[in-house]
């Protein structure tokens, strides 16, 4: 009985993994990644030098990086075509990373203020 169910699972898995990526699709994702990197270069080499100290440049880089990360994980790593359970098991723990970012940005903000306060004392 258990060996029978095992073979059924194996077949299921084999079917699921054939969906998704064809050569054409792989190349499309590659062009998207290349295009986004080219945009990042354009921003860094052409736009950023014209606006020294602008605060909106870094958010552009971060958003573009997250888009690239999405394409690598969803298509190259094939996560988009897996079962919802697996997708959630991998994606939801990333909330902890966002939590750490929030905590440490808050902390470094405190350090800046502390440095300012100390330098005004000296």
């Amino acid at each position, binding site marked *: 009985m258990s060996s029978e*169910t095992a073979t*059924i*699972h*194996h077949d*299921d*898995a*084999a079917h*699921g*993994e*054939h969906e998704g*990526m*064809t*050569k054409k699709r*792989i*190349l499309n994702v*590659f062009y998207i*990644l*290349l295009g986004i*990197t080219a945009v*990042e*270069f354009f*921003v*860094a*080499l052409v736009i950023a030098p014209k606006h020294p100290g602008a605060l909106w440049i*870094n958010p552009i*880089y*971060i958003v*573009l*990086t997250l888009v*690239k*990360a999405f394409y*690598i*994980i969803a*298509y*190259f*790593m*094939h996560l988009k075509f*897996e*079962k919802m*359970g*697996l997708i959630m*098991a*991998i994606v939801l*723990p*990333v909330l*902890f*990373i966002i939590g*750490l*970012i929030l905590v*440490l*940005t808050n*902390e*470094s*903000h405190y*350090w*800046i203020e502390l*440095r300012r306060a100390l330098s005004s004392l000296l």
Partner: protein
Amino acid sequence: MSTVVTQQVDEVKSTPWSGGRSPFNVEYGKMMMWFFLLSDAFTFSSLLISYGALRFSAPVWPTPSLVFQSFPGLIEKDAPLVFVGLMTLILILSSVTMVLAVEAGHRNAKKEVVTWMLLTVVGGLMFLGCQALEWNHLYHEGFWWSKIPNKETLQEFFKPGVPLSQQQMSSHQFANLFFTITGFHGFHVFSGVVINIIITINVLIGTYAKRGSYLMIEKVGLYWHFVDLVWVFVFTFFYLV
């Protein structure tokens, strides 16, 4: 009346979570690779977020376009991002050849798998070579773990008027973080290349043809794409921001 109720109770549920089969519907090794990568993602995030916190709290920071403005061996100055752009291109391309190896594996095309795997290995080695050149260049400028260049060289990486003590403090932090994080990533690339070579040898001696499935290519592929993924973030936070 009672028979209807019994029928409803006995009806076998077939939803993914009603038991008897894996709700994830992936092979054990592949699922464990995903969870390993998740843990590795936490490690890299901790490193990169510490970098972010230290940099954000520092009054000054070496300007990336001034620190990374050479193409080792060809251009000495005024070529910001060119060399790291080449490294990024190499790593993305080797990711593409890896997906192509996985795709060939689905068709059980052994020769194609070998070709794409070998190209992936070559891409990985080229990336490591580039990183060695980059480290070598920075080392000869004076950067290393807890080592920074002399006053005159250091001045080139900052806007004019920044006090020397601040330059030295943030350069120390920059050097330690840069070599630790790119080193940890480079070590991942290195182990990825070694794993890819082992798997290519297995393909050549027919291990997966006998097994009837090239699923192992997918598992090492996941690791390799993860290395590419981390580089995307390292590239943004060290070279662009």
